[in-house]
């Protein structure tokens, strides 16, 4: 049952080794294809034997993901993948456990389990496909849909303020938080690899297009012409520079952020230097709020800090108890407390 290390002779796995025999059933053009492709691409590089990888999901288009990965997979019930993954990881800490979820699955019905897996820092990698809509049930409001959004369930427009998944994850004390976009494939691979490398819970929001029920939700960030002005790629310990010609940057003014044009007296050294390892999560939070029309949306890693994981602490407490008391003896446990003996003659002592 304990996973055995791949025998030395086993050939190095390839992308194809991670492709299952199931026909992929997303709509043609769906952003999910790209996420699947990037995941299959990075898997061989992780150095984890395929049998030690488990993909867990809830319900939603995105949650079909495990069927397509030739690893262990568990397509569970709506909103509960994070809770199930917690049990898997705690019971079997050697496994690499991934949760694939949607904005509805992970933040609507599953919002509470998401909050708690994040704060507990269970060593599970969570990828949230944010298409700002319910795909599988054919187009209702999701918690990330924008105010005023017209959907099947809000025919005259949504009246609810959306959640910002990255802000939420940061406030939930997640130790790794990142964002990627379905169309930025190389960047997504980088982010997924970073998530895999992080020891502890990793939360990755992927901006994903649902071309059937919410087509173009992220188009403003994808347009080839303007995307370098609309995105800023967070890079650890580097100043926040963006723009087609890398001619713009972000700097602090009081406790607010502002865009500055480089040159004309402004140099990179005036810009904010981003530090994803900062223990205080406030700055990551500040950045996560961005997306004003005149401001770029940050992508990449917002936060990557070291903290003991829940599963590790759980195992450690057990190891410590065993070191102290020895492995439990059932006999001692049962034959403990106040006891008495009834003799064959019926007298008791």
């Amino acid at each position, binding site marked *: *049952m*304990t*996973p*055995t290390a791949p025998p030395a002779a086993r050939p190095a796995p390839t992308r194809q080794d991670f492709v*299952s025999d*199931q026909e992929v059933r997303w709509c043609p053009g769906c952003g999910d294809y790209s996420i699947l492709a990037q995941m299959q691409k990075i898997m061989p590089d992780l150095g984890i034997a*395929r*049998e030690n*990888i*488990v993909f867990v999901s809830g*319900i939603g288009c995105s949650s079909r993901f*495990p*069927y397509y990965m*030739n*690893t*262990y*997979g*568990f*397509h*569970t*019930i709506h909103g*509960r993948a994070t*809770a*199930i*993954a*917690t*049990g*898997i990881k*705690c*019971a*079997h800490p*050697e*496994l690499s456990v991934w949760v694939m979820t949607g904005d509805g699955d992970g933040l609507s019905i599953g919002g*509470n*389990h998401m*909050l*708690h897996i994040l704060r507990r820092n269970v060593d599970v990698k969570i990828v949230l496909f944010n298409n700002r809509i319910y795909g599988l049930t054919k187009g209702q409001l999701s918690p990330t849909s924008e105010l005023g959004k017209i959907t099947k369930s809000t025919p005259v427009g949504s009246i609810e303020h959306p959640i910002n998944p990255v802000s939420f994850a940061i406030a939930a004390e997640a130790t790794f938080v990142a964002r990627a976009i379905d169309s930025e494939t190389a960047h997504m691979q980088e982010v997924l690899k970073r998530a895999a490398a992080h020891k502890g819970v990793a939360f990755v929001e992927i901006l994903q297009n649902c071309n059937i029920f919410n087509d173009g939700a992220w188009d403003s960030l994808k347009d080839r012409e303007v995307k370098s002005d609309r995105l800023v790629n967070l890079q650890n310990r580097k100043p926040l520079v963006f723009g087609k010609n890398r001619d713009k940057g972000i700097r602090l003014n009081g406790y607010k952020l502002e865009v500055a044009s480089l040159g004309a007296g402004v140099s990179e050294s005036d810009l904010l230097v981003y530090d994803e390892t900062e223990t205080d999560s406030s700055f990551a939070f500040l950045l996560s709020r961005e997306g004003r029309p005149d401001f770029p949306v940050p992508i990449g890693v917002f936060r990557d800090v070291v903290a003991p994981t829940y599963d590790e602490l*759980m195992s450690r*407490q*057990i190891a*410590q*108890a*065993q070191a*102290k008391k020895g*492995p*439990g003896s*059932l006999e001692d*446990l*049962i034959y*403990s*407390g*106040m*006891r*008495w*003996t*009834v003799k*064959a003659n*019926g*007298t*008791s002592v």
Partner: protein
Amino acid sequence: MATKSQAANNNKPVEIVDRVTIRFAGDSGDGIQISGNQFTMATAFAGNDLGTMPDYPAEIRAPAGSLPGVSNFQISFSERDIHTPGDAPDVLVAMNPAALKVNLRDLGAGGTIIVNSDSFATANLKKAGYEANPLEDGSLQAYRLIPIAITQLNAKALEESPLSKKERDRCKNFYALGVIYWLYDRPLQPTLDFIADKFAKSPDMVAANQTALKSGYNFADTTEIFTSHFRVRQAQLPPGEYRNITGTEALVLGLVAASQLAETPLFYGSYPITPASDMLHELAYLKNFGVKTFQAEDEIAAVCATIGASYAGSIGVTGTSGPGAALKSEAVGLAVMAELPLVVVNVQRAGPSTGMPTKTEQADLLQAAVGRNGECPVVVLAPATPADCFSMAIEACRLAVKYMTPVYLMTDGYLANGSEPWRLPDLTSLKKITVSHEADAKSFEPYQRDPKTLARPWVVPGAPGLEYRIGGLEKAEVTGDVSYDPVNHERMVLLRAEKIRRVAQDIPPTEIFGEASGQLLLVSWGSTFGAVHSAVERVRANGKKVSSVHLRHISPFPADLGQILKSFETVLVPELNLGQLRLLLRGEYGLPVVGLNKVQGRPFTIGEVQQKIEELI
């Protein structure tokens, strides 16, 4: 049935009685549960068979002296094999007016009332809603009233103690206990040892509490209050080593035993809820047994994490009570579909909704048996007594693993908190639980079934070459791929049902207490065993031919049950609900079963069952 004799080292004559039931009652702050437990220990040491039942106050600490703040502990002990904590108490020990008020209606006519008369002051009387002092207004003349100024006497006995007045005052429960020890001729030593151990850090506390106990004992021995005292002879228990055990303790031990018998780690996922929380507390201490406990954010997360742990190769157990069990039902459906082992312990309490959280009931049976969406069959088991929780916990784990299925284990507040002597099992006699996570990579199919049990293989992530994907959508026979094929669906629905039906192969033949056919058969399940069995014993002792069977397996029913039921003219099902097992029996066998139903948050008395039997024959 008392016979007088003379006790060796006591000053007054001893009457021999065969069964005594005592109820201790007082404020939650009065240490009633400690008194009860100590008395229980002493009684166990005295070699009697016994049954206990604590009765906690409602969830929140009510104000001192108020009616909702009353805490009770009842113990019945006997020289015979007994199965309940007794019907009406013979003796009520009431530490304050509220305790008297709440409990008086349960006392048998002519019963003895021992009260701390010091507590019957105006303020307390008012809190308990007494207009006049019942010790003085003659309202208790149907009883044998023994007022003792326990507060004052205790204060006097501890005059020398360096403790504060408040601390000394707290010793009064041991003073009262001393009185009762004398009255029922219990050994002091176990309790003196307990005190020494409990207060080891403060010699003054040890001295004061021990003095209080002994002073109470001596007071009863010396004064004229009692003219004689009582002894219950040792019971003829089967030889062996014993300890007194509550249902919760036994259940926890059973789970740990199952884990060891299966050589598979135990994972316990739970969200606190009365009266199930103690399982979590106790298991959390057993880390050196490799037990992993997970306090989840809610019951849904608890069952889901447990399913995850089962999927990853642990014995997954989740414990809760009614409202929590309701929340788990969707996820149990997933475990049915994914065909994973899972044990759901429901320590039933009085419902519906939040109901009366600290009171016992059996009204979650249908929820467990049929309360899920879709055709969603599971195994349902129920232990009969506190000690039986040990074996049934092992049985639940064994069936879950063997048949790859969720198993509900239905206990209740009364079983969980009640106690009885438990003859410690010979561990070598416990059957191993066979677990295999192996499969041949060449032929492996996730839904290829064992021909006998119909169980699918329990392959666990980490096994190379066996990678597979499952989920809650309907799956194709054998391959487990997603399938919407109509005929496949029906086949799978029937296979899942048949798998549970096959569990009947594992159920031993039903033991019939009494004749195998006749006029009246009682069918009990779960915690009603004691009262039902005792009632049948009594009417049989009166020469009536009445039989009974007790069900530990409710889904599926034992294979021989239908035949047994048909052999009786009338079948009576006593239950602490409005007839849930009755519905299932009628549904399964199409027979006109009748019911005896009580929904008062407390167990049956033997007398209630006996009366119903006598009506029917």
